[in-house]
């Protein structure tokens, strides 16, 4: 009997080096905070940061902020990913449409989401709608661009082969276009998730009553550097966690692609 081959491209990074690097950063951070090189009160030790984190976890503030931020980022991301993905497929498949909208994207893309906060507030007020739409908009642009690029790079011979093999339009979409675009779609979602976090921070700094970035701003006003470090740590870990989840989903569904 021959062994069942595993799909190609399944190599994944081992956690060893990453953990080692994190440990080294912690040690350096500790030494720097203890050395007295930084003015007292401006750089908390890892221990003080952990204590601040435990404190906000115990008080329930962390859960409230995390919940508010996740809801905003999640809803905005979902809205932006769905519309951006649909637009990417449409313009990627239809060169005429693509020629019309490419200049629009090129113009909008360099404008950072934070520059749109005042406008979003003017249009939609200070509530959740403005924040969600801002995040959705930022996600939409990157997902659109990535998916468009991926779809327009699908080899024409794949689509021709499918038509010659008698596959009707719905099968060409689900069995050729979707899987062929899946690696690009996955890259789009990973990038889109990181952009959602960036836009989330911009949106919360523009006015909110809860949320991770809002809390950073409040802690900043009281010069609670230990809490700010804790908040930044949570933001960073959130980003890493989301990316790891998306990457794992990707390995499951895009097993044939080496990326």
């Amino acid at each position, binding site marked *: 009997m021959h062994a069942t081959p595993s799909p190609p491209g399944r190599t994944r990074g081992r956690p060893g080096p990453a953990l080692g690097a994190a440990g080294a950063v912690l040690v350096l951070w500790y030494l720097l905070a203890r050395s007295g090189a930084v003015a007292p009160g401006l750089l908390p030790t890892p221990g003080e940061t952990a204590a601040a984190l435990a404190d906000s976890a115990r008080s329930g503030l962390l859960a409230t902020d995390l919940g508010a931020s996740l809801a905003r980022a999640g809803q905005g991301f979902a809205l932006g990913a769905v519309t951006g993905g649909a637009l990417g497929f449409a313009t990627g498949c239809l060169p005429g449409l693509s020629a019309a909208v490419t200049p629009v994207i090129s113009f909008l893309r360099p404008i950072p989401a934070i520059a749109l906060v005042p406008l979003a507030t003017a249009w939609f007020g200070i509530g959740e709608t403005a924040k969600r739409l801002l995040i959705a908009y930022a996600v939409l642009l990157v997902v659109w661009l990535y998916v468009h690029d991926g779809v327009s790079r699908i*080899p024409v011979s794949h689509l021709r082969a499918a038509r*010659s093999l*008698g596959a009707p339009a719905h099968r060409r979409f689900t069995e050729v276009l979707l*899987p062929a675009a899946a690696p690009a779609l996955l890259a789009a979602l990973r990038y889109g998730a990181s952009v959602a976090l960036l836009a989330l921070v911009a949106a919360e700094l523009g006015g909110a009553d809860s949320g991770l970035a809002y809390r950073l701003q409040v802690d900043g006003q009281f010069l609670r550097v230990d809490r700010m470090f804790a908040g930044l740590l949570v933001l960073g870990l959130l980003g890493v966690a989301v990316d790891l989840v998306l990457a794992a989903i990707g390995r499951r569904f895009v097993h044939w692609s080496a990326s």
Partner: protein
Amino acid sequence: MSLGVRLEGLAVRHGDAHVLERTDLELPAGSFTALLGPSGCGKSTLLNLVAGFARPTEGRVTAGGEPVRGPGPERGVVFQHYALFPWRTARGNVEFALKRLGLPRPERRRRALAALAEVGLADGAGKYPAQLSGGMQQRVALARALAAEPEVLLMDEPFGALDALTRTRMQTLLRELWKRRGTTVLFVTHDIDEALSLAERVVVLGGTPGRILADRAVPAGPPDPELRSLIARHLGSG
């Protein structure tokens, strides 16, 4: 089963570029024709017209008397770079072609494995294209095209990317499959010896705009050096 193909008064122009002019060609049902010519003379253009991937500027293409309006499963295509779906295994690629027939799943699976066995790839059924060599990938592509039971098989330099030994094996395999099935074959190549060893008939395309420069039957039996040099002359003048 096989269909005859007719190309009548074809012209293909892209703006000022005249690719083909006044081209007529008839491929009788069950025949094996090689289309030879220098690079850029319009071989792929002609094959794509029959496949239905493109429309002629003038003239018409019919298969079995029916005008060609687009791609269809009665005209199978084998591409130079295989065009296998990398997200499907060899068996999955062949099953893609079988889905059209609405067979129950076990029957589809059985036929896919039989099609792979027919091209000598029974062992590689569970492998993904990235795990197969070029020759194996082209076998899968051939099995996939044949599984749809086409009546015309269009091949655009299908063995161009293979090494000499694999190429010879694939040629032998193709000859056997053709003899067994009697499918009408149009085989594009720019290798004279490949054309002469495979086909019953050799058509040379050339010139600007492209047109048919020679159309010869290939006699059965040992290679005919005179025919070879005649075709070589036409190719040289293309």
